[in-house]
């Protein structure tokens, strides 16, 4: 790799580190579904995985350290870094809530390094979990004709600092584990905004500061040539929650502690190299959110979250620009008040550029999604997301493995 590319990678790594330190609050995605439960799940994987169906997939990639299954870290044999994010355009379709919001999200960052020869690899990083951003207003009028608006705002987010270690058990198996420092803030605010002069507004704010330690593990096996099967488990996260409520009339201020339980998640995935340059991917995930506790969310609206996706990658005659495509189905972990289930269907296209020496790559994906349905749910979001990720490695002496 030329010195120019090496400098580029180092500069990009430094920039990614800086972005990782930015407060998650500043990054807003404005799906209407962000006001439910924990908000929208953040797609904390690189753009290659996103193009192939998202977090439920495992993708053999020596530069693929931004994957959900920690066992995939074992493919990284060099000192590496990766950063991923996406731009999302949410078009709320409901008649009373028609608007388009564009937001950006820094979703994942990881720094990986070999611990023991080519067997053990460790990483530390950042991964977004849920994004609860949303706001809306309800117009009102007092009995004497004064106009006001009840404005609801929800912001913040949960995120984690995963510390992972993975072992390469040979050609047939990789295993990994993660301990994660989970943090976050979920802020709900009601603002009574009067239109006229000489009238004071009033706000009610509830801030939940959450903290926990999470654990997870994963296994990837290759039972036959060209086939990988992975399973990942993420244990339930038992958050400690410090709640403070503050109001315009400070005599109503209060603070207290509570807990929030995010249920465990199982994810299985498989890939099949159908032919040279052509690989199929399939994955599924399930998390029983009926076990979720906290946020004063009504338990009768909780349900199991299910995700399934199917993807393919095709490289025409060894071209350096592969074609990726996927489809994904998700059933959200909550229902609407009348019990309607909410689904999200999305399709993604993507590609990537592997630098010639194999020490870095740049991936991109474009996803079209539809969440909810005006017809059945009243609420609906049309989403377009553009994912981008970059990965680099610094073990210049080792040649890139040919799994990309």
């Amino acid at each position: 790799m030329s010195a120019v590319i090496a400098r580029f990678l180092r500069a990009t790594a430094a920039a990614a580190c800086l972005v990782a330190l930015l407060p998650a609050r500043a990054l807003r995605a404005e799906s209407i579904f962000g006001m439910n439960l924990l908000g929208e799940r953040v797609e904390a994987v690189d753009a290659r995985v996103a193009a192939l169906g998202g977090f439920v997939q495992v993708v053999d990639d020596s530069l693929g350290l931004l994957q959900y299954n920690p066992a995939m870290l074992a493919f990284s044999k060099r000192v590496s870094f990766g950063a991923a994010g996406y731009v999302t355009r949410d078009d709320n379709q409901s008649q009373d809530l028609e608007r388009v919001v564009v937001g950006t999200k820094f979703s994942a960052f990881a720094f990986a390094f070999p611990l023991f020869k080519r067997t053990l690899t460790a990483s530390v990083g950042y991964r977004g979990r849920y994004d609860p951003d949303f706001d809306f207003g309800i117009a009102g009028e007092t009995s004497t004709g004064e106009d006001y608006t009840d404005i609801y705002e929800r912001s913040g987010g949960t995120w984690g600092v995963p510390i992972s270690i993975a072992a390469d058990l040979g050609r047939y198996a990789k295993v990994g584990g993660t301990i994660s420092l989970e943090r976050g803030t979920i802020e709900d605010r009601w603002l009574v905004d009067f239109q006229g002069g000489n009238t004071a507004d009033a706000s009610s704010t509830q801030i939940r500061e959450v903290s926990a330690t999470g654990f997870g593990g994963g296994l990837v096996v290759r039972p036959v040539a060209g086939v990988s099967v992975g399973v990942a488990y993420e244990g339930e996260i038992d958050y400690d929650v410090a709640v403070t409520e503050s109001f315009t009339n400070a005599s109503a201020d209060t603070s207290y502690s509570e807990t929030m339980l995010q249920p465990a998640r199982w994810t299985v995935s498989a890939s099949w190299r159908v032919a040279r340059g052509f690989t199929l991917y399939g994955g599924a995930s399930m998390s029983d959110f009926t076990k979720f506790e906290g946020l004063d969310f009504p338990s009768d609206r909780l349900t199991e979250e299910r995700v399934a996706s199917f993807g393919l990658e095709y490289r025409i005659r060894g071209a350096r620009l592969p074609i990726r495509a996927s489809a994904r189905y998700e059933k959200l972990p909550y229902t609407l008040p009348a019990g309607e289930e909410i689904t999200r269907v999305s399709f993604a296209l993507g590609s990537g550029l592997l630098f010639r020496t194999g020490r870095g790559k740049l991936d991109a994906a474009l996803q079209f999604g539809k969440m909810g349905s005006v017809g059945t749910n009243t609420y609906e979001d049309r989403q377009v997301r553009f994912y981008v990720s970059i990965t680099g490695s610094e073990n210049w002496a080792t040649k890139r493995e040919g799994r990309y």
Partner: protein
Amino acid sequence: MIPLQSRIPALRTRRAGVFVCALAWFVAASCSSDPRSMLGSDDDLISSKPGDISEDTLDAFGDTVLVYGTPLASDSVLELGRVSGYERTMVMQVAFDGAAGDAAKTVQTAFLRLTASDVDGVFPARFYSLTEPYAQGDSIPSLDTLAVIVDPTSGSPNRNMQTVPRDYALPPALVQGWIRDQIARTAIAVVYNDAATDRIATFKSFENPGASPQLVVNFVGGTTSFYDVEDDATVFRPTTTTPNLVASDGFVRRVYFRIPLDQLEDEAAIHNARVRLHIVPGSVLGGNGNLIVFIPVSPDVTSEEFLSGQLVTAPSFQASSEFIEFGMTNAIALILVGTLENNGVTVRFDAENSELRQVEFYGSSAPDSLRPRIFITSSTPADFDP
């Protein structure tokens, strides 16, 4: 089923192309457009609720008029007479500087010299010796007019004020006592003495050097001493009583009332609070309708702390106004959070003791529509766990 794995590259490419086309069709078919409908129930969608907004009309209670009776002391003229429902009385305190040197002398004659500013014709009056000395700014809530100072020339308590001559005779024995006995040096009041005719006369006050009131004393032996008036004022006294709430200057009165904030939610946020006081038609005197509204430090009207407090607002009114309305949004919000005490509200004229002015408001005994009222728009806190 098409076998995807093939050794023939061309076939493999074609099969992959078919696969991609099928996927593209799936994408296009799934992006169907649903009809739009109304937004659903927000009350149920999120797990919190905004506060309830309410509008309350509260009746003021404990409304009263507090009389301070401080006179106008800084004016350049002293007023005498009666007009617009107020009787004017001149009060003067002679400074007996150097009187010790005259203590051994015997007073032969003495005069109070008053320079007229505007006196129309002959003005009946009486002089009184008050029981207390007067100092500038003192409150004179009532005038003790028992000790009349008889005119030694005529032997009558009645006198006639005029432009000239300027000197009004005082009994030598009285003045002798003032000179020799410090305790006897009480103030002099000049009171209008005509119950039938409303009119007014003015004399130069001590703020006019060279024309200020003066005590002229001629002693036996031919010597004369001049003692200047050092403090003077015009005392205004209302000639009528009223059940209304009166704020006035000249004769200082303040309006005080309380607000029943216990009728509000303790944790309410105040969006707007307005006090409305209905003005009694024809009750306004003076051209300066600037008021001060404050919350006293103490609710005890007899305490010194009641006289100071937190300024709320400084409203103005016009004589033609039907009512005066002023905001108390921040003040009531501060009371609810405990920053301010709910010690009631005092309404007074700004720059008191500067001119005669007055406004009457209907009190809580007035017809319902005219009573002092407080209009409050408030909201309860949002409920994050409904």
